[in-house]
């Protein structure tokens, strides 16, 4: 364990994974009392968030590749170790995960059906996500990768909307297909590395030393990338995502679904790119092309959706296109912009989904054609909606812009053409988001609609921190960018 | 041993094939059960023969096991036959297709 800081010696990273899991168990044990479960879940997520913030404050100036590291033998027979590592990248993503889970639990407050199980699944998911973002042993990573799949499957399949079965099955099959490819590539890499070096190991640090012939590198890279591309999602593999996001239960889970997308990008940054540097270098133009196709295809598709949640789902794909473009540009500015955009997009889109959930619970519909004139009925809710929509379309001074402009500035420096091709996305993003705003907030209110209550205190508690964060990250993202500088293996 | 081991094996094989034929050809559950019994007995004969041939007691131990098992099996299966007969009014094996895919 190397702690570069004054932090007391303690398995903090395991705590991040274990705490939500313990919370989930407690929730299941106390399933008689819904109220107890709610507070329990909230306390768990808050404690996790507090630890994350503490780690951020204590560790962000650490130097060396890892800010914190835990290592223990697990299955020595196969060279599998229990290794967790925290660097600038995972620090940001664990923070995001912990924060969004607090939001999710607060949003789940009014859930009626099987609340304890719902909360328990949310917490298990949090644990899985933490594991994904922290694991630096490939088998451990794969384990968590699959662990986060199951709670999501149940959350969509049990609490989802009308087409939940279809969405859940599709989500499951898609991601499973991807992870199988990754598993095969992982084992192949393990064997090749073992044959080469004589010591069989799944540790990332060991595997990084592997030198492979180019064809093998391409194949294995393809295996890893398939899993990550499906999760991210890149364009030909994206159709599970609008289904999953629009069917995921509005009360909380959908925010968290957004986090799954980040695991794809994270996987690329942490594993696929450093493990296969030559293949990565050759694949960057292809990656950029896919990113651009995704950016535009999703923006255009979003323009023709009538379901508010589907619009937001497509908007996620579109934004992640820009994130990916920043990675493909292979340039420090663009890369840091990508990570920043990933985090801010999580916050902004999470907030948008939360607002839509509040909207849905009031109006009973998510169809743009049946909404409208909301400003007159619930100005506070509408103002929040407008605020986050504007943040999402990249208004300068709000969170997304900071990431977007860094991505574009960096991309233009190394690949001017890519950046120029991405720029019209600004207009199309504005087009679908303004159509969304037009359809919900403006125009006459539908005649048949009953009076709509404005935001409650609990809902303000959810939104206010997100608003503050959106403004703060838009104006001063430097504290978040600082820990990224030391992340190894990238431009 | 008076009887050569080969004869015992041939006899057991014939007995086994007869039981198998019974199981395959007959449609009545009781007849199928009888066929199964015959096959089990064929196996028992082979085991006893082997035991005598190699002068080892293992085969006979197996046969004792086999007899105990067979009687238990027969008891249960006959009980089920009676139950099925009461419930469905028939013992035609092909009438029972509850496991059809």
């Amino acid at each position, binding site marked *: 364990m190397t702690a570069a800081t004054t932090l007391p010696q303690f398995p903090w990273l395991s705590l991040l994974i274990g705490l939500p899991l313990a919370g989930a168990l407690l929730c299941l044990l106390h399933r008689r009392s819904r109220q107890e479960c709610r507070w329990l879940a909230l306390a768990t997520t808050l404690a996790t968030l507090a630890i994350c913030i503490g780690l951020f404050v204590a560790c962000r100036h650490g130097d060396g590749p890892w800010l914190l590291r835990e290592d223990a033998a697990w299955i020595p027979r196969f060279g599998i170790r229990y290794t967790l590592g925290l660097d600038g990248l995972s620090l940001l993503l664990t923070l995001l995960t912990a924060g969004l889970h607090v939001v999710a639990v607060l949003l789940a407050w009014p859930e009626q059906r099987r609340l304890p199980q719902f909360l328990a699944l949310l917490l298990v998911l949090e644990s899985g996500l933490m594991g994904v973002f922290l694991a630096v042993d490939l088998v451990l990573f794969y384990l968590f990768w699959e662990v986060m799949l199951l709670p999501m499957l149940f959350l969509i399949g049990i609490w989802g909307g009308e087409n939940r079965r279809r969405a859940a099955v599709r989500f499951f099959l898609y991601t499973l297909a991807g992870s199988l490819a990754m598993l095969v590539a992982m084992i192949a890499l393990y064997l090749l590395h073992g044959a080469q070096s004589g010591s069989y190991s799944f540790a990332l640090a060991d595997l990084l030393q592997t030198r492979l012939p180019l064809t093998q590198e391409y194949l294995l890279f393809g295996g890893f990338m398939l899993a990550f591309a499906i999760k991210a999602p890149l364009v030909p593999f994206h*159709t599970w995502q609008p289904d999953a996001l629009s069917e995921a239960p509005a009360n909380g889970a959908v925010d968290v679904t957004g986090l799954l997308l980040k695991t794809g990008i994270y996987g690329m940054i942490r594993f696929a790119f450093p493990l296969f540097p030559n293949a990565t270098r050759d694949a960057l133009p292809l990656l950029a092309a896919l990113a651009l196709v995704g950016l535009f295809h999703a923006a255009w*598709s979003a323009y023709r959706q009538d379901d508010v949640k589907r619009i937001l789902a497509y908007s996620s794909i579109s934004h992640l296109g820009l994130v990916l473009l920043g990675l493909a540009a292979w340039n*420090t500015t663009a890369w840091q912009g990508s990570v920043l955009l990933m985090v801010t997009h999580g916050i902004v889109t999470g907030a948008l989904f939360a607002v839509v959930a509040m909207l849905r619970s009031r109006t009973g519909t998510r169809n743009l054609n049946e909404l409208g*004139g909301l400003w007159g009925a619930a100005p506070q809710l509408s103002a929040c909606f407008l605020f986050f929509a504007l943040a999402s379309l990249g208004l300068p001074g709000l969170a997304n812009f900071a990431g977007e402009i860094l991505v574009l500035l*960096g991309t233009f420096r190394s690949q001017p053409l890519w950046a120029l091709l991405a720029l*019209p996305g600004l207009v199309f993003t504005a087009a679908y988001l303004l159509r969304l705003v037009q359809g919900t907030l403006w*125009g006459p209110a539908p005649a048949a609609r009953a009076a709509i209550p404005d935001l409650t205190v609990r809902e303000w508690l959810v939104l206010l921190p997100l608003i503050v964060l959106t403004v703060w990250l838009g104006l001063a993202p430097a504290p978040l960018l600082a820990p990224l500088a030391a992340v190894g293996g990238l431009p | 041993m008076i009887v050569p081991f080969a004869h015992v094996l041939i006899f057991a094989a014939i007995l086994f094939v007869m039981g198998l034929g019974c199981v395959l050809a007959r449609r009545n559950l009781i007849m199928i059960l009888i066929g199964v019994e015959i096959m089990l007995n064929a196996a028992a004969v082979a085991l006893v023969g082997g035991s005598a041939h190699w002068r080892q007691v293992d085969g006979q131990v197996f046969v004792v096991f086999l007899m105990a098992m067979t009687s238990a099996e027969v008891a249960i299966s006959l009980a089920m036959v009676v139950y099925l007969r009461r419930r469905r009014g028939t013992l035609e094996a092909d009438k029972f297709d509850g496991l*059809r895919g």
Partner: protein
Amino acid sequence: MNQTLLFLIPLLPLACAVANMLFGMRLPRLFAETLAVCGVAASFLLTVLFWSYADGDGTRAVLGTWLAAGEATIPFALQFDALSAPMTLMVTGVATLIHLYAVGYMHEEEDYARFFGLLNLFVFAMLAIVLADNLLVLFLGWEGVGLCSYGLIGFWYQKTGNARAGTKAFLVTRVGDVFLAAALLWLFALTGTLSIGAINAQAAGFAPAVLTGLTVLLLLGACGKSAQLPLMTWLADAMAGPTPVSALIHAATMVTAGVYLLCRLFPLVSLSPAGMAAIAVVGAVTALYAATCALAQREIKRVLAYSTMSQVGYMFLAVGAGSVAGAMAHLLTHAFFKAALFMAAGCIIHLAGDENDILRMGGLARRGPRQLFLVFLAGALCLAGAPLTGGFFSKDAILLAAYTQGTPLFLLLWGAGLLTALLTALYTFRLVYLVFAGEPRGYSHLHDLPQLMRWPLWPLALLGLLGGLLNLPALVGGGEWLRHRLGALAGREIAATHGTEWALAGLATGLVLLGWGAARWRYARFRGEWDNPGSRFLLHGWGADAAVDLLVVRPFTAIAGLCALGIDRALVDATLDGLARQTTACGERLRRLTSGHVSTYLAGFIWGFLIILGWFLLALVR
């Protein structure tokens, strides 16, 4: 005094905007209104107070770092110099008066907090554009004014059309923003910084093709915000917003942001002759186009909107002709008299009972308040360029600048400018006659006009009339104050003999008189308005909206449909569903094997057994 205090100029309106948006509805109405007005007025006073900071090379103030990643470090920084100081003074001054007017104008509006919040936010964003020291801060303001424009055009959102006009304005200007952003990225790639001063200083080292490319990108960016061809379709529809908004955003300040941007980057822009020519062409063509459109408009605010477009076209022409001083002088005077005109138009619409159509007005000179007529007339004289008004001098300077360029292209543009001057006089006096002359045609009685809607017009009208003093040419004994003030930023020296100047001034006077005469002949007594294909063509802005709809909106909707339905549903989803169906069909076929008959299973069992046995036997034989 500390330089960082300069940040108070934009931040005070921002603070008031935030306060109004958050708590406006909880506060007493008077408090919210006072807050809004005081925020802007305080900025104005601060600008006056800090005036001396602009002397010499000006003052630069840094508040902190905005973005820092890799090689990009971008601070929040302001630049208060000879160019931005007068502009700041104009923006805050005009905005203060318009805020006061708005208090009167919106006195029946329920949702006042949103209105004043957005109006204050607009002032902040505009000041960010004006004072920005680097292009990213400018971009922040640039998008911010677009947002406020969007929110205020669609302020009366219950009518779908209003909100749609706002969306249209946002999207069309955003198209321009894409080009500005491209220029910004390119400049960053070239220089590694976004500081305007540094970029201007390094511009001389760029290749000519790069300079031309950058200039064209900047021009297109400016076109979006300033409603110049080809991105002009939004401005006329933007009149759906409340009148103070039209006065502030769509006449005095935001639409001139494009001109200001080109002036700000003039050291770069002026290095590219082709780019300068492009700017001048866009300006002259837009000026002429908008003037013809204004001839046939029926809504009073649309006439003014097209006139704004046309006047901004003049400013572009001035920049293209190399005269920043001319552009800025016209920008400032235009802001004064056009704001006065818009506010007077708001009064007229209010008096006539929310009547927009000038064909249904008439007779307001005698029936309406006298002072309203005078103010409107003052504004109209400035707009038409009547001798000795502010508009006369500033427009003359622009035409002179175009004329003295001397190349055939600029002579052609000068001709277009002259023609526009004639048309301007024509449509301006048409407006005056239709609204004020003759007998009332549509309204029965006049509504009351709140005091606050009357007197803020006077200072603006006077400033418009006297605007010539800003940059009075030496010809009539002036000192060209603005040009000297701008110093190195003023652009090309305009050299012309006094004879030429007198001739041009005489020509301009003649054109104004000609336009006035024609309007008087046609409209002094109301004889109905033409309604023929020609006038309808002009009324609909040369069919620009229909063209955009046909060439841009419909193809886009079709492509979007193709993506959402064609690719996602029909291609990707159908492929996957097909795969799933094939798998199910396989299972279906295998299912037949499980008949449920014990005999079948047994037979299968035996056959399998025999096959395995046979295989082993074969292996044994080998």
